[in-house]
C-alpha cells in the first residue's frame, strides 16, 4: 500500500493491467501468429515456413470471392431482418410490457439457453420438405410443388437471423428501456404527431442500441459457417465454411489464416465506414 501512496500515478496502470494482460495473451499474441501463419508456405509433413507469401491473400480473394461476397450479403440481410423483427418487439416490451416485462424478456431469451447446434438443427425440422410450413406454402401456391425451403439461401439467412437475434434485441431493449417517457409527452405538447415523435425522439435515442445491435449481429454472422453447413447446400457456403475446411480438412494453415485475416479486415473496414456514416459522437455521447 505504501508503494501506491508514494506513486499515486501507478494506480490506473495497475487497474488496467489485468485487462491488458488478458488482451495481450488472448488477442495480440494469437493475432500475431495468425498474421505470421497467413504468410507462410509448406505443408503439414514438411512443416510450414515463413516465406512472406502474399499470394496466399490473392489466392483466397480470387478463388473464394463468391463465398466472400455471399457472406457479406447473408450477414447484411440477416442483420436487417433481425433489426426489423427486434425493434417493434423490444419496443413493445420496454414501453408497454408493464408488469410482464421481466417475463417477456425471459421468454425472448429462453430459447438461447439451448445450445447453438440444436437450435440450428431444429430449423431442419421447421423447414422440412414434409413439414407444416412448406406444406401450407405449397397449398397456397407460394412455392412450387417440388419446391423447398430447406437447403436454400432462405433457410441459411433465416437460421442466421434467428441465432443472432438476441444480440440485436438486447442492446436496443436497453436503449429503449432507459429513455424517459416524459420526452414523448413533451414532444406531444409541441404538436408532434406520434410518427414525428418517434422519428425525432425515440429513434435517435435508441440509435446507440441499434448501432451496438447491428454490430454484434453482423460481425459473428459474417464468420458463421454452421447455418450454411446444416441448412444450406454447397451453393450457400460462406467464407467461414472455406476457412473451416482449409484449416481442418485440407490442413492448409496459411491459406486458412489468410482467409481469417481477410475476414477480420473486411469487418473492420465495414465497421469503420458504418460508424462514420452514423457519426460516432452521436452514438457515444
Amino acid at each position: 500500500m505504501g508503494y501506491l501512496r508514494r506513486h499515486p500515478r501507478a494506480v490506473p496502470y495497475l487497474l488496467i493491467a489485468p485487462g491488458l494482460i488478458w488482451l495481450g495473451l488472448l488477442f495480440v499474441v494469437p493475432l500475431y501468429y495468425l498474421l505470421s501463419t497467413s504468410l507462410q508456405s509448406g505443408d503439414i509433413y514438411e512443416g510450414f515456413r515463413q516465406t512472406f507469401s502474399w499470394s496466399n491473400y490473392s489466392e483466397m480473394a480470387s478463388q473464394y470471392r463468391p463465398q466472400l461476397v455471399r457472406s457479406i450479403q447473408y450477414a447484411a440481410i440477416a442483420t436487417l431482418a433481425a433489426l426489423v423483427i427486434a425493434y417493434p418487439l423490444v419496443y413493445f416490451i420496454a414501453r408497454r410490457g408493464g408488469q410482464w416485462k421481466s417475463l417477456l424478456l425471459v421468454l425472448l431469451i429462453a430459447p438461447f439457453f439451448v445450445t447453438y447446434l440444436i437450435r440450428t438443427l431444429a430449423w431442419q425440422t421447421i423447414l422440412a420438405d414434409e413439414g407444416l410450413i412448406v406444406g401450407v406454402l405449397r397449398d397456397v401456391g407460394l412455392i412450387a410443388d417440388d419446391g423447398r425451403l430447406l437447403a436454400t439461401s432462405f433457410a441459411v439467412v433465416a437460421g442466421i437471423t434467428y441465432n443472432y437475434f438476441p444480440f440485436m434485441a438486447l442492446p436496443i431493449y436497453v436503449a429503449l428501456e432507459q429513455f424517459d417517457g416524459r420526452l414523448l409527452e413533451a414532444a406531444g405538447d409541441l404538436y408532434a404527431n406520434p410518427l414525428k415523435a418517434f422519428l425525432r425522439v425515440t429513434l435517435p435515442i435508441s440509435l446507440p442500441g441499434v448501432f451496438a445491435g447491428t454490430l454484434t449481429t453482423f460481425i459473428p454472422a459474417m464468420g458463421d459457417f454452421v447455418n450454411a453447413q446444416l441448412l444450406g447446400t454447397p451453393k450457400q457456403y460462406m467464407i467461414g465454411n472455406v476457412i473451416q475446411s482449409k484449416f481442418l480438412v485440407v490442413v492448409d494453415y496459411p491459406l486458412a489464416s489468410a482467409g481469417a485475416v481477410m475476414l477480420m479486415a473486411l469487418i473492420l473496414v465495414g465497421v469503420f465506414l458504418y460508424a462514420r456514416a452514423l457519426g460516432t459522437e452521436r452514438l457515444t455521447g
Partner: protein
Amino acid sequence: MTELNRRQLLLRGAIGAGGLASMSAILAACGGGGGIEGQTSEQATEAAASVERTLADKFVLSNWPLYIDIDEETKKSPTLDGFTAETGVPVEYLEDINSNEEFFGIVQGPLSQGQFVRDVAIITGYMAARMKDLGYLEQFDLESVSDLGNVSIPAPPWNEGFAYGVPWQSYMTGLSYNEDKISSVMSVEELLTEPALKGKITLFNSMGDTMGLLMQDAGYDTTKIDPDQFDEQLERLQKAVDDGQVRQFTGNEYTGPLAKGDLWACMAWSGDIIQLQADNDKLRFTIPDKGGQIGTDYMCILKGGDVYTSSVFANYVLDPKIAAQLSVYINYVTPVSAAKPEAEAIDPAVSENQLIFPDEATLAKLQEFDPVALNDQTYNEKFQAVIGA
C-alpha cells in the same frame, strides 16, 4: 513447424485438462493377454525391447459417441468394466471424437510438443496413417496382442502387422434409399442422374467416401488413386452439383432428413442405417454392384501413451466374446469374424445381418480408399472446391 507450434501453445489451455495419466506403473494383477506365441514382426521385436510390461494405474481412451457398448440400466460399458475387473486398471473414457480432422486439430499441438494427450484414440485409417507419418503414434507391443490372429481383415500397407493401429470396427459406405419415395436406387449413376431424385440426395463431405463410390462406379481401383481418373470423376461430381441434383454434402447429419423423408436417397454408412431402420423400416441400404467402400477405425497409441496397457486393452477387445458384445451393440462391422457364433448367442438377428457380419460376396465388393490420396493436399483442395468450401 516451429512457428505453428508456438501458436498452438494457446490452444493447449483448452484441452490440457484432458487428464494426465500417471505413468508410474503398478504390478500387473493379471494379464488379458501377454502371450508370446502371437504375431511377431520386426517392429514388434523392436518395440518389445523397450516396453516395460507393467500396467499403468490409469488408461485414457478417446472414442466417438455411441461407439461402445452401454448397459441401458447402469449406463456403463460392460466392455470397459470388464477390462478394469480383469486388469485392475481404471479407464478414463472420453467420447470426444466427432471428426478425424477436428480431433487432429486438437491433439496436433500437444503431440508435436511431445506432451501426453491420451493413451489410445480410435481414429480412421487414413488419419492414423497421417499421424504415424508425423511420428505421433507409438507402436503396439505386438507380443502382448496375441489375439491379433483373430483379425479377419488384411493389414494395410501403412500398418504392417497392425503395429500402429489395431482394428476397432469397420464401416461400409454404400447407398441408402427410402422405399416409400423411390422403388430402388442401385447405382451411383442412378443417384447422380435420376430426375426424380433432383435435390433429394446427399453425398458425404468426406472425400474417400464420395469419390470412392464414384470411382468404383466407373470401374476404377480406389486403393491406389490415379490422378486422371480422379479428375474425371470429380468433373462428374461437379456436374451433379451444378445440375442441382445434390442437395447437400454432409457428415453424420444426413440421418435426420433421411429418416424424415426429405431425402429420398443418399450415400450412407451401414451402421447408421441399421439404427435408423429401427424407426423406419422403409429405409434400405445397398452396396452397389460396382462396389462400395470399407473404412476401418483403429485403436492407436498416441505418443506418450502407455504402450503395454494399451496393448493389453487392444488384446482384450479382440477376444471374440468381447468383440461380439461390442458389435451387437454398435452395429458396425467387427474385424473379428470369430465373433459371429458368440454374437449369435447374444442376438441371433444381429449375427444374420449382412451389414454387421457381411458374407464373402459382400466383402469382395468392398475397397478401402487410398490413404495416401486422402492425406494429399491437392486432392483435398480439388474435392473441397467442388463441395463448395
